């Protein structure tokens, strides 16, 4: 099932944390990206509600914030799964069969690029090199990196997150 726009469920604590970040950074030159990165750290993604809070806090127009958020691949406008799977499709991994890992995961999870399983457990993305090319092919699940992957290992790895 595709991820749908879910109602925003930010807490007052998260909002307070964001306000603190904005107050700390906003007078630095070029503060917008660091603020957005920290905001994504707090909320896990950058829904329009959070972008509006940044706009109000910094005085930067919302159109500009939205423009920046859509330019960079790392900013997520949609929430991710509890376990974020990211398969490297950089050159070293592609040549070593990274696309086979990618195809197998799509089939196993029944979701495509940027999507989330209906229980919100797993989300699937591809990425372009995480710098572990010597271990190609590589994928990440949250902060865990798995190298020298084969399709046979996938079930065992996914089971660890169940």
């Amino acid at each position, binding site marked *: 099932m595709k991820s749908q726009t879910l109602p925003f469920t930010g807490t007052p604590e998260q909002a307070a944390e964001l306000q603190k970040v904005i107050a700390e950074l906003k007078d630095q*030159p*070029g*503060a*917008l*990206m*660091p603020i*957005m*990165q920290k905001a994504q750290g707090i909320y896990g993604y950058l829904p329009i509600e959070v972008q509006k809070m940044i706009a109000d806090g910094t005085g930067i127009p919302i159109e*500009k914030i939205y*423009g*920046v958020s859509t*330019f*960079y*691949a*790392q*900013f997520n406008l949609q929430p991710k799964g509890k376990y974020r799977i990211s398969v*490297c*499709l*950089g*050159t*070293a*991994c*592609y*040549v*070593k069969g990274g696309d086979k890992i990618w195809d197998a995961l799509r089939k196993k999870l029944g979701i495509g690029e940027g999507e989330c399983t209906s229980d919100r457990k797993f989300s699937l993305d591809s*990425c*372009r*090199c*995480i*710098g*572990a*090319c*010597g*271990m*190609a092919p*590589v994928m990440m699940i949250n*902060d865990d*990196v*798995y*190298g*020298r992957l084969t399709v046979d290992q996938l079930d065992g790895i996914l089971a660890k997150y169940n």
Partner: protein
Amino acid sequence: MKTLEELLKLKAEAQAAMAQKTRVLVCCGGCTSSGSLKVTAAFEKEIAAAGLADKVQVVKTGCMGLCSQGPIVVIQPGNIFYSHIDELKVGKIVNEHLMGGKPVKEFLYPETVADPDKILAMAETNFYKKQLCLALRNCGHISPLHIEEYIARDGYEALWRCLNEKKPEEIVQTMIDSGLRGRGGAGFPTGKKWLLAAQQKETPKYVICNADEGDPGAFMDRSVLEGDPHVILEAMTIAGYATGSHHGYIYVRAEYPIAVQRLEIAIDQAHKLGVLGKNIFETGFDFDIELRLGAGAFVCGEGSALMTSIEGNRGEPRQKPPRSAEKGLFQKPSLLNNVETYANIPQIILKGADWFKAIGTEGSTGTKVFAVGGKINNTGLVEVPMGTTLREVVYDICGGIPGGGKFKAAQTGGPSGGCIPADHLDVKMDFDSLKKIGSMMGSGGLIVMDEHTCMVDIAKFFLEFTVDESCGKCVPCRIGTRRMLDILNKITMGQATMEDLDKLEELCSHIQQNSLCGLGQSAPNPVVSTLKYFRDEYIAHIVDKRCPAGVCKKLVRYTIDKTKCKGCTMCARNCPAVAISGSIRQPHEIDQVKCLKCGACMSNCKFGAISKG
């Protein structure tokens, strides 16, 4: 800290501390993906349990180079080289090697114990002995988390000498004389860039480090940042002094969280020691460094886009002129260099321009780090003098192609680069020689391909990358690359004509000439160079509707060799499409219309009767 004596005293103390203990060096760079953190924890636990904690030190290092053998553990003294270590092997190493003084031969890197009478040191193995590490000289040898270990290996001495003994002009002259050229891709002379920045009257000026490392398949910058972060801080501070700047930025890609963390720690330590920040070495010179994280856009590796991104905007390149040396970050004069470029600088200051110039070739001095990956036995980082041949890197150092396969081509320069076919294996790897044969040095990614790689498919792979990463600001790149990709798709599906090939070539030159930034200008390179060297492979796809490497799914045909088929029926029973017919003990046949090209039949045939092509 103020005087050289103080710095040298610190150095002597650090060296003594390092020499006093047995050091267990565990690669905690990329090897973390094969479990090196567990290995480190196991060592710490077993060493404590054995009561060795005050004699043995466990050090988490950056990449040691031979990543395909990871996790790697090296024990000093002796430079004893363990490969593929997991936590279950640690107990035995602690008992027999650390307690008993006898290395555990069965866990050592096989080449080091090939001769039963002695154990080779890591540096004596084929992979390491032809290398010359300048940029990577500390990687894998020191703890990146301790400034003292960097100082033990001459750290911050170059900065001291610059601030106390050299005029800014002299430093710029040394950079010019060294012949150092930028390692980020373009190979622009570093000294010239510094001179231009130093000449600018406007202030403030900025010194920037490009740590965006966008070429997918390259990770040398990551390894320097993670394995030796202080060298970047020292070099940037020297650049600041030489060009009259007090503000530095390091733009690191967000995919490198460990690098960011180690840089933060390093900056903090350098502040505390007084080698960064206000009044460095009490000379009155101020220089500080801020980290900025990228957010996953390849184009932000391009200089002007990087600066636009630090300013907090969509990272789109700017029209040039003005050049960023004049109007760069925040419209102020800015000096941008790559990580590996900076990593060479402190040593050039300490050992002199002539020392550096004597390494490499006349037009390309020094060394280059390559990230070697793909179909090759030893994947990892290789640093060699410029001018080393591709053959030496692929065969002598990296051990050739796995399974006795045949070298088909190597791609250098990533999505902006080109391929080098087997005929050119003896090409010297330096800026000018690579350019001459239609490839480029790029940042040092080196992907090796064998006969199972389809060159059209690879060209398509790179084009997909550029289409994804084009920022969309100018038409030739935004629309042109997409049209190129459409044609490549048609070719790999067997639907293209020879006119499409002509159109493809026209598009290449149009995009190269009319794009605004380097991304678009170089986007056609992979197509141009594969067309130059592997044209017949394109023609096979177009005219014969055949993919010689058996990669392009639509064109692959599985066929049964009647003379080899024993009629065992295995293939037919495993075919999901019921595409195989034939009676028992009679030759079988595949119905090409029904076949899904899944390959199950081929892997099930015990008689090697099925082939694809």
